[in-house]
C-alpha cells in the first residue's frame, strides 16, 4: 500500500528566512515524520533522508530538473536541468577537463601559486577573515583561470556567484506557486548582464582563435570543423559553473576549517599530518554540505519511492545537506569528526547528475588547506566573533575570523 506524499501541517509556517538561517531543525523533523514531504514554501516535495535521496537519485523513473528559481536564473539548457541527448552532449562538453587523470596533470601547478599569492597578502598580519581573504578567492581564481576568465578579477567573480546564488535560491512561493520576492531575481539578472558583457568578447575571440581553456573547448569540442556550439546553448552551463563550481570549494574549505576549530585535537592532528587533509575535507563536506539543497529531480512517470506514490511530473528537491545528517547514516551527525568511518556522503549528489567537478573541487580544497597550514600552522579562531552559517540552497560560513602569533 503506497502513501501520498504528505504536507505536514507545521510546515506551512516554515519561511525561507528560517531555512536560510538554519535548515537543520526543520529537516531533522521532516526526516523523522515524513522523509518525503511537500514543503509549501518551496512549492515542491523534498527528499530529506539518506534513503529517500538515494532512492530518488538511483531510480530510472526520475530525470534531472532545475528548481523553478534555478531555471528562472540560469535559463535553458543548463547541464543540471536537462536529460537525454542534451544532457549527454553537455556532459561530454564539460567532463573531459574534469577527469581525475586530466586534473592531476595541472592542478598542483595551477592552485599552489594561487594559494600562495593570497597567503602572501596576509600571512604576516596575525589576523584575517579567511572566507573573503582566502577560501573564496582561491576557489574562484582556480576555477576562473581554468575556464578562461583570467581577465576577470577575483572580487568580480565572487560578486557574481553571490548574486547568482541569491537568485538561484529565491525559492519562496505563495499558495499559487508565484515567487514571493522578485528583487532577488533582479540581482541575478544584473549579474548575468555583466557576465555576458564580459564573456561575449571572449567567446568572439575563441570562436576564431581557440585556446586551451574550458569555455573555448566547450565551443569547439565535438563540433564539425568550422562550427561552434551556439553561445545561448552554453551560457546556462557557464552560469552553473560560475555559481556552483565557484562557491563549492570555497565553502567546502571554510566549513572544514570551522569543523576543525570545534576540536583542537583534530585541528592539531591535521596540521601535523597533512595526509589527513582529504579525510578532513570529506567530513567537512558531510558536516556542512556546500550544495545543501540545490539539486532536484522530476518524476518522468508515475512511480513509487520508499512507500510513497509519486505522480508523473512531481518535482522532488534533493536535500543532500539533510541526508548527510541522517542518524541512520552517522552517529551524532551534527558533530564534526574526521575520524568517522569514511562512509560515502551525498555532498556531490548521486546518480547520473552527480557533480562533474567532484575530483577537481576536492583537489582545490586539499591544496588550499595544505598551503594554509604550511604557512600558518598556529591558526586560532578569533573567539571575539561568532561563526554564522547562511544558506539553504548553498551553505557555508559567512565569515571566519582567525588570529595567529606572527
Amino acid at each position, binding site marked *: 500500500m503506497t502513501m501520498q506524499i504528505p504536507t505536514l501541517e507545521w510546515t506551512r509556517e516554515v519561511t525561507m528566512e528560517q531555512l536560510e538561517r538554519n535548515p537543520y531543525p526543520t529537516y531533522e523533523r521532516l526526516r523523522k515524520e515524513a522523509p518525503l514531504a511537500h514543503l509549501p514554501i518551496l512549492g515542491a516535495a523534498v527528499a530529506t533522508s539518506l534513503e529517500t535521496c538515494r532512492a530518488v537519485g538511483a531510480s530510472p523513473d526520475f530525470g534531472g530538473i532545475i528548481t523553478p528559481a534555478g531555471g528562472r536564473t540560469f535559463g535553458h539548457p543548463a547541464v543540471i536541468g536537462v536529460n537525454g541527448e542534451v544532457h549527454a552532449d553537455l556532459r561530454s562538453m564539460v567532463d573531459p577537463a574534469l577527469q581525475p587523470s586530466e586534473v592531476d596533470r595541472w592542478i598542483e601547478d595551477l592552485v599552489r601559486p594561487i594559494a600562495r599569492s593570497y597567503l602572501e597578502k596576509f600571512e604576516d598580519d596575525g589576523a584575517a577573515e579567511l572566507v573573503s581573504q582566502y577560501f573564496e578567492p582561491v576557489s574562484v581564481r582556480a576555477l576562473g583561470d581554468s575556464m578562461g576568465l583570467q581577465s576577470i578579477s577575483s572580487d568580480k567573480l565572487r560578486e557574481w556567484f553571490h548574486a547568482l546564488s541569491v537568485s538561484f535560491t529565491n525559492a519562496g512561493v505563495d499558495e499559487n506557486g508565484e515567487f514571493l520576492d522578485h528583487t532577488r531575481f533582479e540581482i541575478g539578472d544584473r549579474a548575468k548582464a555583466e557576465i555576458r558583457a564580459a564573456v561575449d568578447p571572449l567567446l568572439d575571440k575563441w570562436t576564431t582563435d581557440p585556446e586551451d581553456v574550458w569555455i573555448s573547448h566547450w565551443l569547439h569540442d565535438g563540433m564539425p570543423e568550422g562550427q561552434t556550439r551556439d553561445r545561448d546553448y552554453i551560457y546556462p552551463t557557464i552560469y552553473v559553473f560560475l555559481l556552483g563550481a565557484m562557491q563549492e570549494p570555497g565553502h567546502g574549505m571554510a566549513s572544514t576549517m570551522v569543523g576543525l576549530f570545534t576540536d583542537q585535537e583534530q585541528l592539531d592532528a591535521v*596540521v601535523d599530518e*597533512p595526509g589527513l587533509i582529504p579525510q578532513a575535507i570529506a567530513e567537512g563536506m558531510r558536516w556542512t554540505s556546500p550544495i545543501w539543497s540545490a539539486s532536484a529531480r522530476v518524476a518522468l512517470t508515475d512511480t513509487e519511492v520508499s512507500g510513497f506514490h509519486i505522480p508523473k511530473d512531481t518535482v522532488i528537491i534533493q536535500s543532500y545537506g539533510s541526508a548527510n545528517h541522517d542518524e541512520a547514516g552517522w552517529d551524532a551527525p551534527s558533530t564534526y569528526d574526521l575520524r568517522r*568511518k569514511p562512509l560515502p556522503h551525498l555532498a556531490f549528489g548521486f546518480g547520473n547528475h552527480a557533480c562533474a567537478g567532484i575530483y577537481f573541487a576536492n583537489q582545490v580544497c586539499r591544496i588550499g588547506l595544505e598551503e594554509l*597550514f*604550511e604557512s600558518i*600552522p598556529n591558526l586560532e579562531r578569533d573567539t571575539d566573533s561568532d561563526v554564522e552559517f547562511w544558506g539553504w540552497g548553498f551553505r557555508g560560513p559567512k565569515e571566519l575570523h582567525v588570529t595567529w602569533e606572527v
Partner: protein
Amino acid sequence: MTEHTITIAGRDDTVTAAADQTMLDAMLRAGVWMPNSCNQGTCGTCKLKVLCGEVDHRDSPLSTLTDQDRADGYTLTCQAVATSDVTVEAADGGTDAVHHPLIDFTAIVTRVDDVAQDTRIVYLRPDREFEFSAGQSVSLHVPGAPGERRQYSIASLPTDPEIELHIRREAGGVASDQWANGTIRVGESVELSGPLGDFVYDPSDTDGGLLLLGGGTGIAPLKGIARAALADNPEREVIVYHGVRTCAYLYDQQFWADLAAAHPNFTFRPAVSREHHEGCMGYVSDRLLEDLSTCRGMTGYLCGSDRFVDGVAAAAKRRRLAPRRTFRERFTPARTRDLVAG
C-alpha cells in the same frame, strides 16, 4: 623454503621474500625504499595496502593495525609475511634522501665511554662498508639475549670509521642495562642490521635554517644531521637544543662547543628542566618560545620521547615551523611481547 614475490603497483619493482621474511625486510634489502620507523609494529609508519595476494599479519598489534585496517586490506610490512605472491600499493615518496639497502653485518666494539649519568656512548667498527644517511638507525641483536633486537639511532656519519650509538640505561633492560652496562667488552662482536628509519638529513633541502631538538639521548641522530648539514654548507644556520632533566645528563658539551667555534651560524643550547645550569633552566619548548621569534622557513628535526616530541612540536608550530618540514623520531619503548594480538 617457499619464496613469494612482492610487486609494488605502478612501479617496475618486484622483490623476492623468503617464507619467514617480513615484507619490509625484503623490500629494504632489495633497495626498494618503503617508509619505516620503529620496526616493531607500534608506530604504523610502514602500513601499506595489499592490492592482491595473501599475507599473514603475524604479531601486528591490534592497536596499530585495527580490525578495520585489516578488513580494508592494510598490513604492517615490518611484521607481515607474504603467504602468496602479492601486489602492494606504492607508498608516498617520502624525502628525496638517498635510500640505502638494508644489510646484515658484524661489528666489533672498539670503545665504551661513560659520558653522563646512565648514559654510555658505544663505538662499533663494522666488518664491511655500511651505507646510511645521517639520522638513520641500526637494529642490534642484543648479545646474550637471543631473539631480542633493539633499534638505536646512529650519531656518527658514514664517513666515520666507527658507528656511534648513545645508550641510556633503563634498569633491568636486556640491552641497555644487562648488555651495554653489564656484559659489554671491548673487542666483542655484535650482529647488526641496517640502516632503518626515514628520519634522515635531506641534502637537497638547502633552504633556510635547521632546528634540531633532542631530548636526552634523542640528541644522537641530530649529532650526525648537524655534522652532515655543516659539511654541506658551513655557513648554514643550525640551532640545536638538548633537553635533559638535570646537568648530570648533559654530555658531548665539548663536541658542540667546537662545532660552534668553527661555524658562525651554529648555536647549541642546553635546556635543563629541573635545575639551574648557566641560565638555561627550563624545558626545550619554553626555551624555544623565549629565544626564537619565528621558525618560518626552517626545517625541524625532533627526536626524543613521545612527550618530548609532542611538546617541542607544539612550541615550534606556535613559531610557525612548517608541518611539511617538521620531522619527528620518537623513542619507542621496547615492545612487550605479551601485548601481541593474534
